[in-house]
């Protein structure tokens, strides 16, 4: 078999079952490295396309559909117009209502909310109520560092104000803001502006600038999933109703690899945490959210959204971000210049990064630091640094790259020890510095 034929027949290997051509294609792949690489790339892409979870029908879909079918049946019966068929229509209607009611009741009876069916139903109603809102404006605070990424939390950090806006109609737009960092999605692109570094980046609407805060802009989705997980007995959730308020509490364990605990409790997902949602029992709308983590044997609140307003008219100016003149553009790995020497691993990256500062070689620095220019603040702070040690890289939590321990002496004589965050999870496999300095 020739390469051209092998490439053509290779698709058969991605079918549910082998075809007669599969054997010869596999034999060719065993002998031909070029075709094997192409096959592996196709395989890798298919794995990427596969969803981490399948989309399922919502819990009321079956009942709604049967209602629609029963309605169609009733219309059919009515169109013939005889008395006995009218009686039949009544029977259909009664049967339809009973079926719909049963389908709606079954999940309530098997849910995990301690038999509090009234509260369970109210939660489902709040999801419906949330689906009708036109805009959400949330104000609160979180324990984080101004200017650092939106995912960062710390039990010891001070509270920083946080504000989020989401417009659903007439077009989807949102804005998330804390001191030092703003992200705006204007309907066609999202822009991140880091005022502490006077740098910015524009990317696709779902670029991930706000990370785990993004789901908060879709509270309806969160509630739906809490409800479904509880129904499927997959979550440790409790719900209570008192004094006109419904409170849903969901406990979750930390995610990630913590053989090295550096990243533990640095984000909500990397912490053992509880999310406490409260809803107005009358309007069914979300009133507040509090997230606490368990750190050092204590429960510490790290996020509070206490002021949630619905259907405010949000001005267009809210979703337009003016980038100051002279701001540094954050670039993609493909746009970075090639390093003068090969950078093969995390330790190489850290060494190259600090050596560039030591020699004030800004061109070299931009080979590992994703920016169009080096901000003056960085030049002043790290210029002529002396590297005292670069330690062994390690991984921790959910971070896709590595942390590299370092100790440096700054130009003013002070010594700094920290972990540099480096990564190469980009299509070019280019090593770059992501933080920790």
């Amino acid at each position, binding site marked *: 078999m020739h390469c051209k034929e092998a490439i053509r027949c290779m698709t058969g290997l991605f079918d549910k079952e082998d075809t007669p051509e599969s054997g010869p294609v596999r034999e060719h792949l065993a002998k031909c490295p070029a075709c094997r690489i192409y096959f592996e790339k196709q395989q890798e892409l298919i794995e990427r396309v596969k969803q981490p979870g399948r989309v399922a029908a919502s819990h009321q879909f079956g009942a709604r559909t049967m209602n629609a079918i029963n309605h169609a049946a009733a219309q059919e019966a009515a169109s013939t117009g005889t008395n006995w068929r009218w009686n039949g229509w009544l029977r259909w209607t009664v049967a339809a209502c009973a079926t719909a009611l049963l389908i709606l009741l079954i999940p309530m009876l098997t849910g995990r909310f301690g038999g509090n069916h009234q509260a369970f139903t109210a939660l489902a109603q709040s999801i419906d109520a949330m689906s009708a809102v036109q805009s959400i404006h949330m104000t609160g605070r979180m324990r984080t560092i101004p200017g650092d990424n939106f995912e960062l939390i*710390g039990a010891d950090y001070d509270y920083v104000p946080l504000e989020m806006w989401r417009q659903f109609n007439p077009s989807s737009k949102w804005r998330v803001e804390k001191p030092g960092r703003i992200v705006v999605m204007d309907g066609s692109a999202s822009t991140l502006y880091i005022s502490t570094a006077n740098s910015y980046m524009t990317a696709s609407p779902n670029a991930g600038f706000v990370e785990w805060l993004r789901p908060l802009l879709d509270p309806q989705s969160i509630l739906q999933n809490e409800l479904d997980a509880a129904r499927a007995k997959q979550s440790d959730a409790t719900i209570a109703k008192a004094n006109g308020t419904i409170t849903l509490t969901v406990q979750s364990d930390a995610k990630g690899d913590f053989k090295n605990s550096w990243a533990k409790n640095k984000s909500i997902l990397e912490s053992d945490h509880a999310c406490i949602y409260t809803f107005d029992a009358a309007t069914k709308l979300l009133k507040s959210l509090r997230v606490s983590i368990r750190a050092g044997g204590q429960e510490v609140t790290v996020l509070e959204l206490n002021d949630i307003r619905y259907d405010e008219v949000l001005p267009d100016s809210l979703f337009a971000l003016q980038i100051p003149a002279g701001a540094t553009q954050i670039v993609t790995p493909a746009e970075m210049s090639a390093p003068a020497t090969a950078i093969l691993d995390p330790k190489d990256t850290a060494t190259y990064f600090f050596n560039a500062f030591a020699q004030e070689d800004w061109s070299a620095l931009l080979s590992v630091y994703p920016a169009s220019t080096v901000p003056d603040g960085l030049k002043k702070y790290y210029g002529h640094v002396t590297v005292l040690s670069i330690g062994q890289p390690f991984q921790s939590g959910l971070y896709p790259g590595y942390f590299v321990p370092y100790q440096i002496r700054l130009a003013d004589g002070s010594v700094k020890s920290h972990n540099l965050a480096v990564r190469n999870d980009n299509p070019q496999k280019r090593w770059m510095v992501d*933080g920790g300095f």
Partner: protein
Amino acid sequence: MLTTAQPISAWPQTIEEFERLVQATQDDLVNFAFHQLGNQEDAEDAVQDVYVQAYRDRGKRRHITEVRLYLFRMVRNRCIDFHRLRLRRPADAVTDQVASSEDTFSVVAEQEQSKELHRLLEGIPSREAEVIRLRILSEMSFAEVALIVGTSVPTVKSRFRYGLDKLRRVLNVEGETRCTAKKLFVA
């Protein structure tokens, strides 16, 4: 009770049979429609329309033996209609539901990935994207895909291969930005 694994060889004729059909096929059809339309609300509307039409046409459809595949074909056609008449909220503004045992933030993050994937597939020719969705996301064989889209198996395979090649090019470009955007500046 029918399960999704069982073939359905006779078009249902009674309300009770339709109820069993809905229970057995709703998740697969909504999953398929979701990947065609990009949001749960439109997907469920499209699938519900198909079930109602399937009921109304039950007399004319008695001869059909591949009921499940025929339903997929009906949903596919309905989704094409939806694309033409789209007037609803943008894709990322609605409730999506992903069957998963992960915690909510992870699940909603997965939904974001679903929406992102939908957006990327929108960037390649629709006939090729459709075949990729059916084979990978709905787990149909190429022969089943061919029946649903009404073409031959070799054509389906070609569309699959060309579609993957184009998708890789799109991902390579988009991947650049996403890798840089996430967790930039880790404390």
